[in-house]
């Protein structure tokens, strides 16, 4: 579902360093990345490899030490704080491992909040939020507080919230990290739907289940990309049985 080969997000020579001299830590160490419009890219690596820091840099939550970041053809890493805030609000949708919902707001209030912050009329914001909750299968939970929802449901609310302002890109940090197997499958379904609908997505994770749903998988170690695997496109969709055998051999 790629619209031509438009590059939605690009990073060049991206670096993030902490400390100095002997204590210098290169959390992100010269990353080059291009994410095409409509593409889902997963960055996979062990904890501490720099993948979360990378995601924060890409979404403007943190400032890089060096390198460039381009979003939809605009260089964003040198923007002033006000411009960055606007990008974070409308250009990028974030999904976090710990959901980060507002506990005192209902599901629908959480989802409409980014629209209200972006200055949309309350009525339109509410309508959009209701649509999104329906899309993530939680229309009947709209007036529940986060504490009344399961982990999987909270993450689905958080995904709906990430989509509120129709972001150019959704950045997800370990979105299945706190979920059990069944809730993980719900989130996988949702990301597959988003991918199918042409949403551009970058997921950082150490969970192979969500990584395996990406179009492209990048391995990260010690702040740098070490390999890249294309999971779709080349071979296309494979026959299920050829992947797993027939399981029951009736010839015996």
């Amino acid at each position: 579902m790629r619209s031509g080969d438009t590059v939605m997000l690009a990073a060049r020579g991206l670096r993030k360093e902490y400390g100095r001299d002997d204590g210098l830590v290169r959390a992100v160490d010269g990353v080059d990345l291009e994410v095409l419009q409509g593409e889902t890219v997963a960055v996979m690596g062990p904890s501490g490899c720099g993948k979360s820091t990378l995601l924060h840099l890409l979404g403007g939550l943190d400032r890089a030490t060096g390198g460039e970041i381009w979003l939809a053809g605009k260089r964003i890493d040198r923007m002033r704080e006000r411009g960055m805030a606007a990008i974070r609000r409308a250009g990028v949708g974030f999904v976090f491992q710990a959901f980060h919902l507002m506990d005192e707001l209902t599901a629908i209030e959480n989802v409409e909040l980014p629209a209200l912050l972006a200055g949309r009329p309350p009525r339109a914001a509410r309508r959009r939020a209701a649509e999104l909750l329906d899309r993530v299968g939680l229309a009947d939970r709209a007036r529940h507080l986060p504490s009344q929802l399961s982990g999987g449901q909270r993450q689905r609310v958080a995904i709906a919230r990430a989509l509120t302002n129709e972001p150019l890109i959704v950045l997800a940090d370990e979105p299945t990290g706190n979920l059990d197997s069944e809730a993980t499958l719900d989130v996988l379904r949702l990301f597959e739907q988003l991918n199918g609908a042409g949403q551009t997505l970058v997921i950082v994770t150490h969970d192979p289940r969500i990584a395996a749903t990406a179009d492209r998988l990048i391995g990260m170690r010690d702040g740098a990309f070490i390999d890249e695997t294309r999971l779709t496109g080349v071979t296309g969709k494979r026959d299920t049985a050829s992947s797993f055998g027939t399981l029951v051999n009736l010839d015996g």
Partner: protein
Amino acid sequence: MQQEVVLALLAKEPAHGYQLRARLRQALGPLGDAMNDGQVYVTLARLERSGQVTCERAAGDPDRPDRKVYGLTAAGHRRVADWLAEVSWPKPDLAEFHLKLLAAAAARLADPIAIVDAQRRELLRRLRDAERAAMAEPEGSEPALLFDGIVLRLQADLRWLEACERVWTRRRSGRG
């Protein structure tokens, strides 16, 4: 175990061959699609010859195999009971891959890490296929449960590959 599967499907009541095929499809989902329809009949014929299955021609067209009704004999019932009581489980077969890594490193013919990477890519593709297949099945359905098992085993294999990578990375850098 293969013949037992067919026998067990007949344990509740006699059935036509096509009913057995439909039951397998329902249980296995897309994995059942790959089954050769003839296999069920070949197995039924073998079971009939060995006296574990009886076959009666239902009224109608006697030449059509689908018209036959299959049922269990006493021997067939006993074998199903034995099968249900038997404890068996597929054994993980990791020794070959393990020895491949050892051989690659010892003979310096290939980089063990590269072999692990290639294997991981393959498993991730399989995981993707399994996830997709699982997502396509209704929650709580029989095939969804089967795919759950496949997904969990692939995850375990991927974790073992991570361990392989760690050890072989240490060894390569001379710290192991």
